[in-house]
């Protein structure tokens, strides 16, 4: 029991190169807070996915995202999506990284969006080839949505700069629901959602075709820069409520700013792995006709089991004379 107590109390006992001792104590595991550790596999290179920055990016078998270039710095963008904890205030992010350059450093920015007010916090590593941690604290009083960007310097020797993993800690206090907030986290303007909710950033997408031309921003959206091709992007959804006696129910909402809505579509794929997923079209709504709207829909509760998997695929229209289309958020919830 004593071992258990101490393991709950202390998340780290670290001795620095200069001999100092830091005890990192777990506020993380008071009953009020929660945390996740994401691997670097969650991150994407910023920029067009067929250009230098993305092509220099590799995913490693240890779960890291790495800059394999010996010349160029790469910027990556990592979603802070949790699961139901996405409705909670982000307290801090601890980034586990390796700096692979002898004279250049790794820099990370934590972006927190609080009802449209965006704040950014920055942390820089020291130079030199080292594995270390950067901690970025959200000192704002609110802010449940955010993302992380990091600049990974080129390697100066054999060791690549990587983000191996990042830990996000949340407070266990759901903010009040505000349907005017962008990106939206409320399906019903009436109040806090009644059940666990799950959110996936638009940044966590998979390319549907190599030929398409997605652009990952250093903000929180994906853009299609092609002038001719629709860009299909795929968002796998993680299920976290598999208890058999609780019937899960899924909604999906996408937000798309476009002047070419006729070419946009989002569909929910519901599959039991047989290769023939059920496909549900999500319905577009844009109540004020300003080009910012939502796709909404649900899966089929009757055919769901605890092995049913869900994926959303959205088609982003090509750019037009009025600009590009942006897909900013995918949200699903499970009851």
């Amino acid at each position: 029991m004593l071992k258990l107590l101490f393991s709950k109390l202390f998340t780290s006992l670290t001795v620095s190169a200069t001999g100092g001792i830091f005890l990192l104590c777990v506020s993380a595991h008071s009953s009020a807070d929660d945390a996740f550790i994401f691997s670097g596999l969650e991150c994407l290179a910023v920029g067009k996915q067929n250009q230098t920055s993305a092509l220099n990016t590799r995913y490693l078998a240890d779960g890291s995202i790495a800059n394999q270039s010996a010349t160029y710095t790469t910027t990556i963008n990592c979603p802070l999506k949790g699961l139901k904890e996405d409705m909670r205030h982000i307290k801090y992010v601890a980034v586990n990284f390796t700096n692979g350059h002898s004279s250049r450093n790794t820099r990370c920015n934590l972006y927190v969006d609080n009802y449209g007010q965006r704040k950014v916090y920055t942390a820089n590593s020291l130079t030199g080839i080292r594995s270390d941690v950067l901690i970025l604290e959200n000192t704002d009083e609110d802010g449940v949505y955010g993302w992380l960007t990091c600049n990974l310097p080129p390697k100066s020797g054999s060791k690549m700069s990587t983000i191996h993993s990042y830990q996000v800690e949340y407070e266990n206090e759901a903010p009040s629901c505000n349907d005017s907030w962008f990106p939206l986290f409320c399906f019903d303007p009436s109040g806090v959602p009644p059940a666990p909710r799950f959110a996936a950033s638009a940044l966590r997408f998979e390319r549907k075709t190599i030929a398409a031309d997605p652009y990952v921003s250093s903000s929180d959206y994906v853009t299609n820069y092609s002038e001719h091709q629709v860009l299909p992007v795929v968002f796998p959804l993680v299920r976290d409520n598999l208890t058999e006696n609780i019937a899960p129910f899924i909604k999906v909402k996408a937000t798309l700013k476009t002047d070419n809505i006729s070419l946009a579509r989002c569909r929910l794929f519901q599959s039991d792995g047989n290769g023939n997923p059920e496909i549900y079209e999500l319905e577009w709504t844009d109540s004020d006709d300003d080009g910012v709207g939502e796709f909404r829909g649900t899966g089929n509760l009757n055919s769901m089991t605890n092995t049913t998997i869900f994926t959303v695929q959205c088609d982003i229209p090509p750019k037009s004379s009025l600009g590009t289309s942006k897909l900013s958020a995918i949200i699903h919830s499970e009851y």
Partner: protein
Amino acid sequence: MYIQLNKKQPKLWLAYLTLSVGLSASTLSHADDAKLYPGSYCKTTYEGGLVDASNGDPTQLQNTSTSQSLFMTCPIIRDYMASDSGIKNVQVRYFNNNDAKTVSCNVDIRHRDGSYVARASARTNYGDRSGVLTLNLNREAGVFRSYVLTCWLPPSFSNTSFPKIESYRVVEFD
């Protein structure tokens, strides 16, 4: 440990250095937690290059090559943070049409710098066409460490159906 904070650094350190002894009983209870990931959550590479392996069905990843194996690196979100929490098991749902080759997977616990801590491995039997590959890890992970699943899908035996990872289910214990 080299950490640079941009704002309110003293506040953060003070928070870290404050011992939180008021742990609730619920945080000390032991429980399992399962998460289910579509196969398409994985990253795929042939010889280091990113590939499109969805082949029309975005819920799963398939190896459409008839000559090359497909290496997949699959994220796992760690939900329990205590040092004595860990992974109980991982179940990978697969299909394999290549009777001469197997599907193999590893689940790792990794240090915060990515170095290896522990691993469980499993491989299908030759001729197994579909099923669930179970990797029993049952290891405490320690603090700050992360998890990763890696799998090899064999080359496809035909051009009409393909070896694939349909989903993977990760059970953590607290």
